[in-house]
């Protein structure tokens, strides 16, 4: 074997190795750069999400504080003034005919209704039942109030066995409240059924009704409309709870499923 043959052999081997190494280095640099860019994008996205969640949390907390303040003022101040007006009204002596008496009675009825309304608004703004007796009782109470006021059949099957109070019960309660109010206002339902179930991982709440409800696609569309403030609030609370919300149509009924992780 002559020297030229050895040279050519060496040249081929070195050439193959060099080309292979160059391509692999190029490939590794490409993968490394892409990974870095991907990591940066992920961290940026996580930061955005964190900021968004902090904003939602702040908004929800300030909303709750404001509701609490208005509820207290309505109950303690407006309520007290109305109650005092009622007492004063009772002490009025009438004796100038039937006409005046009927006006007096009408005014008393209106005053009673006003006191009742203020109390209802105060309770819906700040649920003391939720704080004292927990989520299940608050939902039951709200459901019976709706059934009483609007002659809709509202039934509940709530998980009392595995139920335990959660930090964010107020947000879950507000979601249920908003959803039920929407069903009452828009769906024209005659029957509503609320189910709750606690698993080791999450709380599952299902609201089904026989009215004209929303599908997931319609919900997504409405969320971005200007007037969909209620739906936006619901979505914000769901984001805050790191939960999930699904709208679906099951045969003749519509169903809303809420999944909230247990922390």
């Amino acid at each position, binding site marked *: 074997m002559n020297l030229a043959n050895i040279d050519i*052999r060496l040249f081929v081997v070195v050439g193959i190795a060099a*080309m292979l190494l*160059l391509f692999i280095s190029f*490939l590794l640099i490409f*993968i490394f750069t892409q990974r870095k860019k*991907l990591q940066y994008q992920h961290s940026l996205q996580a930061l955005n999400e964190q900021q968004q969640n902090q904003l939602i949390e702040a908004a929800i907390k300030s909303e709750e504080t404001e509701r609490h303040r208005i509820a207290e003022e309505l109950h303690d101040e407006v309520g007290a003034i109305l109650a005092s007006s009622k007492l004063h009204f009772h002490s009025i002596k009438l004796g100038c005919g039937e006409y005046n008496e009927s006006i007096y009675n009408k005014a008393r009825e209106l005053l009673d209704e006003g006191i009742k309304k203020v109390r209802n608004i105060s309770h819906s703004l700040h649920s003391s039942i939720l704080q004292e007796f927990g989520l299940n009782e608050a939902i039951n109470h709200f459901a019976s109030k709706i059934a009483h006021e609007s002659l809709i059949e509202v039934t509940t099957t709530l998980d009392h066995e595995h139920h335990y109070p959660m930090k964010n019960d107020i947000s879950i309660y507000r979601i249920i409240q908003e959803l039920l109010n929407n069903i009452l206002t828009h769906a024209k339902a005659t029957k509503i059924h609320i189910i709750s179930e606690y698993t080791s991982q999450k709380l599952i709440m299902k609201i089904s009704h026989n009215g004209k409800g929303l599908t997931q696609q319609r919900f997504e569309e409405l969320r971005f409309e200007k007037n969909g403030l209620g739906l936006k609030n619901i979505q914000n609370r769901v984001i805050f709870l790191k939960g999930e919300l699904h709208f679906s149509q099951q045969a003749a009924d519509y169903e809303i499923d809420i999944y909230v992780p247990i922390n």
Partner: protein
Amino acid sequence: MLHILQVILDWSEVWALFIPASILLYTKQPAIHKPVVLYIWFAMVINIIIDIIWKFRMILPIGLSSNNCLYNLHSVLTFFLFSSFFIGLKQPFLVKIKKTLPLIFIVFLLINFGFYEDFFDYWQLSSRLLSVEAILLLFYSLSYFLFKVNENVDVNIFTTDFWIATGLGLYVAVNFFIFLLYNELTIHMINFAINLWNVHNISYIVFNLFIAKGFYESGKH
């Protein structure tokens, strides 16, 4: 044992193609993969004939006992199909060059086989053709990655075309010098040339595995 291994490697240009072909049978590929799919079927037919000629060259008529022109044909088809694959990806990067290269390759074919070499040469394949094909395809492969580096990153960087471009890049990078010097080696060091062709065969298996991975990933989406 070594003999069996050598037989497996000798036929690898055929059986390696069955790996992506088998995935093609149960997955539907997007339109951009059409040139690669065509390559698999064309290459399978050509390589089967190549290996049959090689194994039965002793009993075949003298005019049919050379497979060198089939290697040339394989090389021409490989270049045009893979260049159309890269052009079909519509990456807005070096577009004019990528579209001009097939025309340059046609001019090269006409000049080379018109004046310098015989496409149907009985004794040797065209080292010049295969090495030009390899270097041009390496350019396509590298331009793919250069564009991707500047592009906004998707969630998955290991896309279907990534596997195909990587497989092809590895194959042509390894084989450029083999193709370039193969004719010289067959004249001066026939045994070394035969051994070196095993390196080509191994890289061809890897190339097909990468294509198969690309087809598989595309079938999953």
